[in-house]
């Protein structure tokens, strides 16, 4: 069964047409890598998957329900099941790391403050962030902010995770930690869309890769059968021949 199905997705910003019929699907536990040049509209698709953007035309099915017709209130139910990992972490800068992680739990769970406390400390340890719970986002490094963002996104144990450039700008150590975390979630059956420019990470964590160009998915293939010839656009993108 498809968890996510995107059909003929079209989106324009003013006179600029970004998508002109994007179609793809995802099965449970699958990780789809969405690659493409800067400005190809990868993040717009990702944002549309949880209703942060509305498509001009086309449909987005989440468990066979067309969410493009949903209003903000109905989308909240979808968003409880889907985690979005923002490029820069998007941490609430007026809150400590602890409160950032507690935010979704306080909103959507019936846990007591003691249980929330325990859960957050465990989550921070899992993400290698133990001891930082009282710090504020401004005092964290970029890599740590991303990891806190990830920890916050994962704390509600989502069924689907959407990664927007999760490894961009990170050092090899932090990149590897994030790859390991994506693989760990994958082994638990979590479905993911991994938007990235970072091809080594995409190859390490994705089952399939879709290449977005000129507003459509130009090529899609499984990672284990990735063509190594110049006829493949994905291969050309990997070796820097096209943007």
């Amino acid at each position: 069964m498809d968890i996510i199905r995107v059909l003929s997705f079209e989106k324009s910003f003013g006179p600029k047409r970004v998508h002109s019929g994007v179609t793809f699907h995802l099965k449970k536990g699958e990780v789809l890598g969405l690659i493409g040049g800067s400005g190809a509209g990868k993040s717009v698709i990702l944002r549309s998957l949880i209703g942060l953007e509305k498509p001009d035309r086309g449909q987005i099915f989440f468990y066979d329900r067309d969410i493009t017709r949903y209003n903000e209130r109905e989308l909240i139910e979808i968003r409880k099941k889907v985690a979005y990992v923002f490029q820069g972490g998007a941490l609430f800068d007026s809150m400590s790391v602890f409160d950032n992680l507690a935010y979704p739990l306080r909103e959507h769970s019936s846990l007591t403050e003691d249980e929330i406390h325990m859960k957050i400390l465990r989550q921070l340890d899992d993400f290698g962030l133990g001891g930082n719970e009282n710090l504020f986002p401004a005092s964290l490094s970029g890599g740590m902010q991303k990891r806190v963002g990830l920890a916050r996104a994962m704390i509600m144990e989502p069924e689907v995770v959407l990664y927007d450039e999760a490894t961009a700008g990170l050092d090899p150590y932090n990149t590897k930690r994030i790859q390991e975390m994506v693989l760990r979630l994958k082994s638990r059956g979590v479905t993911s869309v991994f938007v990235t420019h970072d091809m080594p990470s995409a190859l390490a964590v994705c089952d399939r890769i879709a290449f977005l160009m000129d507003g459509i998915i130009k090529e899609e293939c499984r990672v284990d059968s990735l063509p190594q010839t110049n006829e493949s656009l994905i291969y050309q993108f990997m070796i820097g021949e096209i943007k």
Partner: protein
Amino acid sequence: MIRQGALYFGELFTRFFEFLGGMTLLTRNVLRELFHKPLYFRLVVEQIYQIGSRSFILVFVTAASTGMVMALQFGFGLEKFGGKLYVPKIVALSIVRELGPVFASLMIAARVGAGITSEVGSMTVTQQIDAIRALGTSPIKKIVIPRVLATIFSLPLLTVIANAVGIFGSLIVGSTELDLDPKYYFQKIIQTVFLNDYLVGMGKTFFFAAIISITACYYGLNVSGGTQGVGSSTTRSVVTSSILILISDFFLTKLFWIFEKWT
């Protein structure tokens, strides 16, 4: 030249209607979500502290200065016609019905409106507003409603203080500079200012508060163009709410006046 002019006015009209539509939608969303659970009471209290308590000094200084200057100007002006004794009446009525509410609102528009727009705008450009939505919560409930309620709660209270401080300032100037007996001055104020005068002035501040906070949130939520965008949105927010306060003041005065005559 003509084409450029047409384009300029075309853009101006588009922006005006965009603003009008955006404000209407935001107001509708605020009203709709206001009556749905949850209401973040703690956030409202926090904002009352930020908006109300921390604006006290600014409103205090503005009101004191206004009252003192008005007493001085009317005193010297009316002295020529032997009308110095009317200063307490004129000044008190002007402050309570007009200047107290309007000046306090303009000060709040500058301080609080700018603060809200820059704060919400920064949250928008750093995707914190998107994060609020992505985490299954509503920015209207979390960000807009607490600020709107806090402003609606704080501005009338600040106006009460502004009125009192303004009148007290005029009393000091009246007794020290115009040689009016403080007792007489106070008595005249009590005889002149009635409850309905006070209510007319205060009534306007609820509308002004809504204008300030919704305009500020609208510009904050619609920031584009990074940190530079935050700056220009903040300026636009203050200018727009100041203009809206001054324009709506006329219509509200007229409305309250009709209402007063009717009752």
